[in-house]
């Protein structure tokens, strides 16, 4: 019956209740949607980071991570191969690459780049490379083929089929130059990637630099990012520290990990900000409801309800409002997130700006159950807390004071 009373009281002023209900709905929606947006952005950032030739775990030579020069390379490739072959969990994939700093020249300019020698077939499902070739045939059947980013191609004023000359330092410290043919153009999420990375076949680069079968890195992609620490631990046990360095994605792209970790805190801060905006309306509407019912509170106090009973009634009324609002807001958020999660939110119009921060062009929001729980929880707990103020005011009304009230 208390619930019935609370519910009916809530709807004595339908318009006022609807307005504040709408505020709660929008508030909860904003909370969940923000969390989902950030989560989508983070997930994309992680995906991109992993696909950006990082992988979940890498094996490198000591010192390469800090100073990626050709001298810091893995010379004992067989040991790593054996370790990967026997220790990786099912579903894991790996490939090896050779990297070096280089200068690419065309008749229109020369640019500093990173030349990466890859095994084109093995990159499938490992990095963005396999799915990103937009023109040309790629590296598959071209020993001296070169895969160039769209943005760099524009700067070089070149096209597929054109020749480019690449200068790099070989194993003995000599500058070597080789002519390559552009056999493919790739697009990356980030323009900086397109300008920075140039790809050729691994064997070609190994020969050019005179490093035999040596590589710079083994990159491993696992079925789930969470497995990275465990896999890294197993590999570290097998591969001696003197010759190998095992890194997880958290060590290689630490800002992504830091973003992921602080996401909950950001969401909570945002939730509180949204709530504060909402709280004024809420307290105001509950106060109004209390002040226009002074006589009623006096009456039921005379009948024998305790001040605590009055307080409970007002809080219960607010609770009804908050539950409906939280449910409505969550539902609205679920619909929005579900829809935009499928279509994505296109930021390409602002891509120049977002790229600068390393963010994606298209964000696919995804909400976790905890996002709904956090939003609904924030609104419910803080909402009840602020409703205590009008509730205490109501509880203090005495029958005699209420009778004098007009």
């Amino acid at each position: 019956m208390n619930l019935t009373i609370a519910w009916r009281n809530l709807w004595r002023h339908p318009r006022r209740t609807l307005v504040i209900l709408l505020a709660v709905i929008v508030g909860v929606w904003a909370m969940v949607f923000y969390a989902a947006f950030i989560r989508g952005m983070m997930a994309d950032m992680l995906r991109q980071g992993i696909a950006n030739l990082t992988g979940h775990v890498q094996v490198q030579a000591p010192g390469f991570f800090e100073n990626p020069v050709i001298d810091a390379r893995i010379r004992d490739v067989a040991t790593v191969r054996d370790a990967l072959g026997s220790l990786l969990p099912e579903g894991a994939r790996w490939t090896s690459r050779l990297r070096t700093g280089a200068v690419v020249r065309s008749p229109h300019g020369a640019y500093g780049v990173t030349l990466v020698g890859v095994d084109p077939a093995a990159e499938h499902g490992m990095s963005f490379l396999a799915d990103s070739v937009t023109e040309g045939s790629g590296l598959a059947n071209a020993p001296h083929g070169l895969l160039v980013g769209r943005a760099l191609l524009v700067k070089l004023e070149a096209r597929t089929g054109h020749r480019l000359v690449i200068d790099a330092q070989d194993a003995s410290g000599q500058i070597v130059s080789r002519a390559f043919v552009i056999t493919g153009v790739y697009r990356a999420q980030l323009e900086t990637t397109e300008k920075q990375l140039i790809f050729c076949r691994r064997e070609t680069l190994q020969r050019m630099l005179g490093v035999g079968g040596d590589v710079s890195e083994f990159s491993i992609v696992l079925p789930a990012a969470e497995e990275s620490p465990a896999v890294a631990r197993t590999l570290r046990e097998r591969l001696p520290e003197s010759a190998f360095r095992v890194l997880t994605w958290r060590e290689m792209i630490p800002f992504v990990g830091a973003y992921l970790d602080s996401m909950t805190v950001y969401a909570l801060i945002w939730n509180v900000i949204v709530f504060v905006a909402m709280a004024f309306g809420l307290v105001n509407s509950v106060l109004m409801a209390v002040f226009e019912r002074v006589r009623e509170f006096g009456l039921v106090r005379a009948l024998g309800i305790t001040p605590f009973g009055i307080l409970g009634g007002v809080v219960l009324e607010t609770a009804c409002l908050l539950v409906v609002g939280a449910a409505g807001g969550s539902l609205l958020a679920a619909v929005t997130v579900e829809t935009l999660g499928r279509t994505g939110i296109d930021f390409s119009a602002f891509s120049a700006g977002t790229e600068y921060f390393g963010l994606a062009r298209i964000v696919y929001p995804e909400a976790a159950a905890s996002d709904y729980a956090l939003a609904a929880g924030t609104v419910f707990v803080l909402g009840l807390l602020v409703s205590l103020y009008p509730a205490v005011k109501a509880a203090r009304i005495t029958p005699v004071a209420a009778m004098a009230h007009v």
Partner: protein
Amino acid sequence: MTELPAGRSGAGTPIVEVRDVSKTYAQGKVIVPALNSLSVTIAEGEFTALVGPSGSGKTTLLNLMGGLDLPDRGSILLAGRRLETLSAAEVTRLRLQHVGFVFQAYNLIPVLSAAENVEYVMLLQGVSRSERRSRARAVLEEVGLTGLEDRRPAEMSGGQQQRVAVARAIVSGPAIVLADEPTANLDSHTATELLQLMRGMNVRHGVTFVFATHDELVMRHAKRIVRLRDGAVVEDERCS
């Protein structure tokens, strides 16, 4: 000005004993005297009218009897307990268990139907749901409101609303029902009906009533008339 000793007023067990009670209100800087060393005793089964001009202290006296307010001086005994010795929570509980109230207006909770208004007090008293239902139905039938159980206050006439209030006041068999000008907003015909209803409860169930009025027509129904002036009892007469 005759002041009658408290003990003389009735033969039955005293339900309310007001002894030497004074009450003033502070209105800004002005002190307004409301009751002045007033004593009166209400015995079980009485049907008493508090009569006096506006401002004579009727409402103040009823509030003190029902434990809605505290006197400045003097002592009040309600259902065997000295109110001035009790905590606020104990007074509230005492009121819930032993006192029924009927006010001049705003008697009912607007969002509840007639039956629910009657049930509400029983809910506070901890009466079970099924018993609440059947008792509410029965008492509404007794006050002649069968068929109107599901009406909200706004859908009932003033007389019907006051009947609901009376039904609510008596439903749990209180020691006393205090009614402050219950007929003030009713026409004389409806007022008479309400008084007859209350008197019927008094006769059939022995419910003790004290009601305040300044209406000659209403006070004719009383079995005892306590006249107040300037916060003191000036006359206390029994009628037959």
